[in-house]
Structure formats: C-alpha cells, structure tokens
C-alpha cells in the first residue's frame, strides 16, 4: 500500500529530526539578541561570541538572533513560560520594569555581591543617565550594553546654501522652525526638499514623543511608579501641536507617519535637510552621506532634556545556578570597557561603560570622528526612557493617536485625550493591585 508506506516514511523522517543535541562538558548558554542596526552586525555579534568562547573554555555561548526589540520581548517571554529561558538577553532598556513586575527577571544584586563589589561600585562604571532604566526598587536588574540618545542631524552643505551657519546649529524650537522654513524648497505647490524629518513608527514614535515632551519641560511617565503616564498634559500637548504645525501649518515636514529607515534614507538622499534620529544611525550616515553633515543636541522649548534609548543585558528568571553564573560571566565580558567600545565603534551607539572612552582605540576614533562625541556630551541632560507596566501596549496607545494626527485625521488635543483614556485602561489592572488597593 503506497499510502501507508509514504506515511511510514514521513513518520521516520519526522522522528529523525526530533533528536535534540545532548550537552556535555562546558556549560551551554544562549544569548538572545535583536539586530537594532543593519544586518552586518549580526555577523559582528557572531565574531564577538566566538571570541568569548575561545577565551572561556568552561562556557559555550550561542548567539540567537531574535528579530526586532518587540519580537525579542515576545520570544523571551514565551521561552520563560515554556520553561526554556535563555541565559541572557539584550533587551530594550524600557522593558525591564514591565518584566520585573511580571517576575521575569533575575535580581543581579547577589551576583554582584558574590564578586566582592558593591552595587555602587558596579553601577559607578556606567553613565549616571543609564542607571534609571537598570535599577528597580534599588536593586540591579540590567546591565547597560549599547545606548543612544536622539540627535539632530543637519545637512551642512544645504544649510550653507540657505545662508545658515551649520557650526551654530539651532538651539530652540523657534530657531529650528526658522531653519526648517529656510531649508524647505518649493516648486509651486510641490515640495522638492523638506526642512526636517522626524520618525514615527511603532517604537520610534513613542521615543520621539518623549523627546519632544521632555524638551518642553514635561515628563512622559511617573519615574517612581509604573502605573501612570502623562499624555493629556500641557507639555505633551505643546510638543504634539508643534510637530503637527511643522507638518500642516508651516509645511516643512512631510505629512504622514514616516518609519525610521525612510527618514534616514530621505536625509541621505538630500530629500530632507535635517532629521531627528537616534545616534544608533550615526555609523550609517557617516558611511553613506555624500555631503558634509553636523550632529547637534535636540533643540529645547523649555529645557534641554532627552531620553536614553538602546538596550541592557538581562538574566531571565528561572535559570539553573550554573547557567546563571555563566551568563553573568558573559555579561561582564560584553560590558567591559574594551568590548563595549568595540561594539560602539561598529554600531554608532555610545558605550555605556565610561572607561571605554579612556581606551586608546576610542581616543583615536574620537579624534577621527568628533561627531561621535555629541551623543556622549548630551548624556549630561539625558533621563531614563519611559518604562511602565505593559510598556508596549501603553506606548502603542499614544503612538496610534499620534499617527492619526500626523496623517491629518485628528487634532492634537482630542488625540491626547483619547490616548490618555486608552492608556489608563491598559494600566488599570496594575493600579487595582497597587495604588488603588486600599485598606
């Protein structure tokens, strides 16, 4: 009987594939990593892990690529629930609080103590601005790995052409609006060159809203408590109204919500003369810009302030002790001055470890590429990235509304009222367990 013979063959094939590899000898650990910049970095990560394995014979680490930051969170959570947690994950820095609330993280205090250092000494290696997203309730839950701040990128050639001095970049929203007007070129009703481009897609949009709100004196969320966001406030209304005005009143910013890659593409192609984008794109701009460019601080309306971005290394909950120890060894190695400096030069992210900037390779690199200093200097005014209970859905509550505004379908005020209402609904279960749980 042909039919059953085929079936047997199929079953034989299936069972042959189901043999898992057995581990012997070194402790085998998995590191989940997203690729936040272009794909060649996946190879760089492979190189890094290979070097780690060659220098640590007792551990065999495997780098597992896990998609975008949001996908990495989904995969990590699913793996934890399935009882197969990875040993370490490069996790978007603003997901840590949410994971800690759900008891998905290992508290790193004990591991730090076992090394004979104090928490203060350990955290002291990193820029102060980064500590807010790594420390929860005075315990360490993450180790900063690669970080960013948003920057203003300026096409210096086009600025000169428009009679502006690229060495004196705009410092306030008023100056920036003026620059954008002067840098917009029109051919009748058609715009041939936009003055400025600001990205808005899931993940990026929330980060840019936090950036603008902070420059406007505001706070996106309650830094001390994961159950509150401040969407319906004067500072955020001012920020969104200004963004909306750039599009529909001054007509110096293309209408619609533009994803990050499209923003950098239009900057590189000369279609947009300025852009606000992460320092993580700096290497790409440096390699591809056929013109002189400058990077500058994000202009202020009320004060200079930006959120940090990027990712931290975390250890999921529920690991065996030997894997946990191996993961800790890997994390310390990856965040050492040398390695984090090397990764920074490869990506454009800045190195969170302050000592990285004292290594000869880095000093040499900064001499050749002074633009890499701007993000580090901006750290003086940087603050933590928003992190709440259910960070991603709460972020999307705002992003969906902002996209409607940029697409000309809603006015800022009503959009923010709707976003606040939706976010309050998303945060409700957590508040019911905490702030509204009364004796």
């Amino acid at each position: 009987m042909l039919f059953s013979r085929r079936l047997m063959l199929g079953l034989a094939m299936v069972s042959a594939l189901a043999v898992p590899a057995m581990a012997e000898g070194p402790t085998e650990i998995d590191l989940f990593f997203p690729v936040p910049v272009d794909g060649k970095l996946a190879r760089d990560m492979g190189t890094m892990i290979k070097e780690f394995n060659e220098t640590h014979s007792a551990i065999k680490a495997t780098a597992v690529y896990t998609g975008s930051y949001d996908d990495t969170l989904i995969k990590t959570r699913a793996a934890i629930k399935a009882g197969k947690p990875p040993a370490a994950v490069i996790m978007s820095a603003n997901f840590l609080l949410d994971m800690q609330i759900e008891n998905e993280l290992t508290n790193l205090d004990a591991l730090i103590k076992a090394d004979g250092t104090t928490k203060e000494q350990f955290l002291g290696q990193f820029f102060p601005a980064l500590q807010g997203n790594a420390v929860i309730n005075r315990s360490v839950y993450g180790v900063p790995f690669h970080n960013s701040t948003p920057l203003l990128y300026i096409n210096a050639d086009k600025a000169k052409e428009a009679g502006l001095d690229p060495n004196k970049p705009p410092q306030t929203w008023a100056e920036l609006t003026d620059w954008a007007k002067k840098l917009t070129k029109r051919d009748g009703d058609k715009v041939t060159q936009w003055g400025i481009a600001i990205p808005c897609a899931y993940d990026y949009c929330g980060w840019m809203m936090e950036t603008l709100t902070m420059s406007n004196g505001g706070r996106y969320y309650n830094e001390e408590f994961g159950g509150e966001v401040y969407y319906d406030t004067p500072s955020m209304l001012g920020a969104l109204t200004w963004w909306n005005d750039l599009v529909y009143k001054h007509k110096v910013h293309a209408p619609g919500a533009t994803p990050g890659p499209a923003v950098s593409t239009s900057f590189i192609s000369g279609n947009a003369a300025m852009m606000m984008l992460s320092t993580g794109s700096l290497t790409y701009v440096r390699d591809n810009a056929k013109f002189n460019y400058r990077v500058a601080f994000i202009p202020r309306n009320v004060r200079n302030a930006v959120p940090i971005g990027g990712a931290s290394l975390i250890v999921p909950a529920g690991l065996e002790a030997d894997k946990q120890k191996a993961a800790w060894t890997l994390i310390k190695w990856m965040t050492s001055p040398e390695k984090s400096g090397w990764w920074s030069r490869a990506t454009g992210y800045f190195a969170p470890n302050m000592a990285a900037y004292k290594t000869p390779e880095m000093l040499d690199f900064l001499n050749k590429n002074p633009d890499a200093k701007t993000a580090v200097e901006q750290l003086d005014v940087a603050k933590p990235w928003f992190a709440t209970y259910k960070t991603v859905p709460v972020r999307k509550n705002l992003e969906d509304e902002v996209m409607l505004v940029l697409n000309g379908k809603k006015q800022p005020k009503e959009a923010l009222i709707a976003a606040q209402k939706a976010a309050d609904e998303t945060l409700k279960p957590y508040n019911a367990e905490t702030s509204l749980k009364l004796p």
Partner: protein
Amino acid sequence: MTLIDRLWKDAPLATRNEITPKLGFVLTVLLALVWLIPFLWMGVATLRPPSDGINLMAELMPSLTPTLDNIRDAWEIGDFPRYTLNTTIICAGILLVQFVTITLAGFAFARLAFAGKTLIFYLFLMQLMLVPVLLIVPNLTLVAQLGLYDTLTGVMMPFFASAFGTFLIRQAFEAIPTELEDAALIDGAGLFQRIRHIYVPLSMPSFSAFAIISVTSHWNDFLWPLMVINSPDKRPLTVGLSVFTATAEGTQAWGTIAAGTLMVIAPLLITFLIFQKRFISSFVTSGIK
C-alpha cells in the same frame, strides 16, 4: 490589437466579437502589471550597484552597470542553502501529515454517522477564528514539554491538523456520488481502499488547492519559527532573512534586502511558474469532470 487577438484564441466562440469580455481582459492585464511592479523593482534593486546611491533606489529603470554584489552580500550574511532546506522540510513535513489528517477527518465529517457530529464539526471550524498569536505561549509550552523545543518537528507540530483543510476536503467528499462508493463496496473494497481509490483521486483539485495554501502560508510564517528555533542552523528562510530587514534604530541596505527577498521567494515563484496551469485549474474546477 494583434497581441490581444493572439491571447484571445482560447475564448469561447460566442463571445469573440463582444466588447465587454475584452474590456475585462484588458483590465486583468493592467492589474497583473500593477501586481508585477514590486517584483520588477526587486529584480532591478538586486542588480543595482551600491555606488548608484540611495537616490536611484526607487527607480524602476535598471542600472546600466548591473552587479551581483548584493546577491553575494546576502548570500554571505545568511546560510541560504541551509535555510531553504529547513523551510522545505517544514513545509513538506506539515503538508504530508496534513494530507493524512484532513483526508481521514474530512471523510468522517462527510460520510460517517456518529453522535455529536455537527457540534464537533462546528468546534473544528471555530479554530479558524482564533488569532494564531494567541496560541504562541500554550503551543510553545506544549512543544517544550514534548522535548521538541528548538527542533524542526516543534515548528511543524501545531499545524498537523488543519481546520480549513478538513472543511475543504469534507466539501469535496460530499460532492462525490455515493453510488461510486456503493459500487466499490459491492466489489468488496474496505474503508481505506474506498477512500484511496474513489474519494482521494476524485478530489485531487481540492488537495492541490489546499497544498498551495498550506505551503505558501508556512513558507512565509515568521513569528512561530522565531519562537521555537534557537540554533542558527535550524532557521527557516523567513527568520534568516529578517536578520537584515528588522532594524529598529538603524537603517537599511535596500539592495541586500531585495537580493535576500528574491532568494526567499525564488523557489516558490519557480514552482508556481512550472505548475501554473495545474494550479489555476485546481482552483477553478471542482467535482467530477
């Protein structure tokens, strides 16, 4: 008009001089061209040298100095032969098991009488309304408990039974006259022989239609394999490709992405072109010729 006339020779005689079907035909050609544009762009972008710069990236006009650099780049970033093999194993494995399960289940729902048949059938159909993302965690937990985490079998497992396939085959089997089965019964054929020699051959169009739908959907599946697979050598094409498309704060090398995408869809595209006639007819025909 000669082109249209040449394409027109298969049209039924009665409508050959009418204008309306011709309009419809022209509209179809236009739609096909619109559908082709992304594919054309992909081909053009793949062969465009990076030195052309980003400004020409959106152009449909091919570069005068085509290059294979992008293909080589994409080829080096990912282990494409390996990814293609994995994807093929996943799709073929799922399809083989599905054929067995949907044939038997379809037959049971079409021809057997048992208690609660209608209720069970509707429960079966309810599966179609579940969002797959909803099942990721329970499915992954089960796969891990079965010891199939990070195996290709683990990727295939949740799809071995298909509600849609069962429904399709049930409809096909129901359309087959019972007289044929009765004749086989008189000749002394057993249950499985009747299924094999009467039901399955007569429902071939439905089987091939289902095969197309099953293979294309699992070929393109990204999130579930991403959840199950850790080892780089077990990645399917979609996960391998996303290494250089899913970027958060960075930027994209369009030429490399186009080349990678081309490699992912090429096997499917070629298969479709070879079996085109058969595919189209299997969607159109049903029942007995």
